[in-house]
């Protein structure tokens, strides 16, 4: 069975209810095909896992979704709106937020500032309003502060609000990135290896946390994760990439039993 066949099945069954739809997305870097004709759909409220061996194209897929890398061909739409050609900040405005595999916090800034910045799209104050503390800024700034504080509390970092992000522990940086992404008030949250570097206890907590966040903010979540038990326990559905191709898609039990997946993991890594 080929990847294309999967996509046919998927498109026919999820067209109307999907929040995110990827059709034949392809990305080449020179001769290398990082993502090859991948298609899938994500339904609202779902926690959708994206797994695969190293170099399978997972992060590239995230970059395509968030607009950091334009696809070479294919279609991506969010809530029925085509994302192709939109710059990252536009996609963020539409309600897609993400975290990064190699944490990209604003290291020299405080945790609070990191979260404040991400509220950019939900505030409007211009230069003069900001400088004079009048007009929009007058109303927005307390709101921004309150929201940032609330989100830091949610991820348990309110004590460290004034500390520079680069001084945080690895796990705290991951949490801060999630808080920052949540500040965008997204509808779709893309988490790139949120458990990387966390200890087993933290990982267990993370599952509960992600579910809680999903429910609290009515989110749809797509996550990349290496830690298989976490993915199996957390995700509603899983897509498996290998060498840029989608080799399996379905609920955790089905995917875990798929011979192609077993082959990819055993043979690959």
């Amino acid at each position: 069975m080929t990847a294309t066949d999967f996509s046919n099945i998927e498109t026919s069954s999820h067209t109307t209810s999907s929040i995110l739809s990827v059709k034949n997305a392809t990305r080449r870097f020179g001769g290398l095909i990082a993502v090859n004709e991948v298609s899938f759909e994500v339904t609202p409220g779902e926690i959708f896992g994206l797994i695969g061996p190293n170099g399978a194209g997972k992060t590239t897929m995230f970059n395509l979704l968030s607009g950091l890398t334009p696809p070479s061909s294919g279609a991506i739409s969010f809530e029925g709106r085509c994302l192709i050609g939109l710059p990252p900040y536009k996609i963020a405005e539409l309600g897609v937020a993400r975290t990064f595999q190699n944490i990209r916090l604003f290291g020299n800034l405080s945790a609070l500032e990191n979260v404040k910045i991400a509220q950019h799209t939900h505030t409007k104050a211009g230069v003069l309003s900001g400088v004079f503390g009048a007009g929009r800024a007058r109303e927005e700034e307390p709101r921004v502060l309150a929201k940032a504080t609330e989100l830091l509390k949610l991820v348990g970092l309110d004590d460290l609000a004034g500390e520079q992000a680069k001084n945080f522990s690895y796990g705290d940086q991951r949490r801060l990135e999630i808080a920052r992404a949540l500040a965008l008030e997204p509808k779709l949250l893309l988490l790139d290896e949120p458990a990387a570097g966390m200890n087993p206890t933290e990982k267990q907590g993370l599952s509960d946390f992600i579910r809680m966040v999903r429910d609290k903010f009515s989110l749809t979540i797509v996550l990349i994760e290496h830690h298989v038990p976490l993915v199996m326990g957390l995700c509603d559905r899983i897509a498996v990439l290998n060498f840029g191709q989608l080799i399996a898609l379905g609920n955790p039990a089905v995917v875990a039993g798929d011979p192609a997946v077993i082959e990819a993991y055993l043979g690959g890594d």
Partner: protein
Amino acid sequence: MDITVFVQNFLNGLSIGTVYAIFALGYTIVFSILGIINFSHGAIFTLGAYFTYFLIGGLNNGSGILANAGLPFGLPFVLAILVGSLMAGFCGVLIERLAFKPLRTRGADPLLALVSSLGVALVIVNLVQYLIGAEILSFPSNVFGEFVNQNPSINFNFVDPSRPIPIRTVQIIIFAVSLVILVLLAYLINRTKFGKALRAVAENPITASLLGVSVDRYIFLTFLLSGFLGGLAGTLVGTSFSISGPYFGVTYGLKGLAVIVLGGLGDIPGAVLGGLVIGLAEAFVPGDFSAYKEAVAFALLFIILLVRPQGLLGRRLIQKV
């Protein structure tokens, strides 16, 4: 355009372009290794010319505190130019130790290198002015030997015998010397252990040090080579036009920046290409627009950067996400 004029402009452009290239190579190898721009490179250019001038036994006709001073000996020109450029190279190394290394060890913002080397340039220029003076120094007209002295320009007839194209002999010599230097440099960088290591360090200093390349030693050699090239270019221009004083290298310093960015920062063939492009572009500025000749290099730079933000041969920066 008239073919005679075309050929003349072309040869002029090549001649000055190769000097730009040699000078700019000094800039670019430092950038390729350390990711910094050495603003004192123009001052090194000046120093090279002064060193050679005094090494051939020239007297200081300037009014600085060393007025009328000179060395008690005079070296043959070929030797003087090599020693003079080498001395410029060691000045480059000294600058590295004083102005760049402390910044590197502190992990300071690379931008600061601009300021620290600006300070060095200010010191060099004003020190030359203080010691030597602001006056013009000229190489004797027989510095390239009697033949050049007797035949300061050569007529070329290969287009139209009735209208010979006069080319300055010095220009031809400089062009030839520059070509030899560029070939040697290409060999050095592509074929020798030093060159390979240099490229490795340029590629990634951390990996290079893991591979056993002593990064510090290669930084030393890079600045030596960079200063040597800068000093050599200064001497060549000085013999062609005379040394116009302590600010001799300033215009070349600025234009050299245009050259390396045009070619692609840190890219060695790019610096050569950039030098030739700017040299030729300047040579082909129509007479009616000679007023804008000075801006040609920068206009070209501006336009090319808008089309190719990484310069002509530079690699596009791919940011890893």
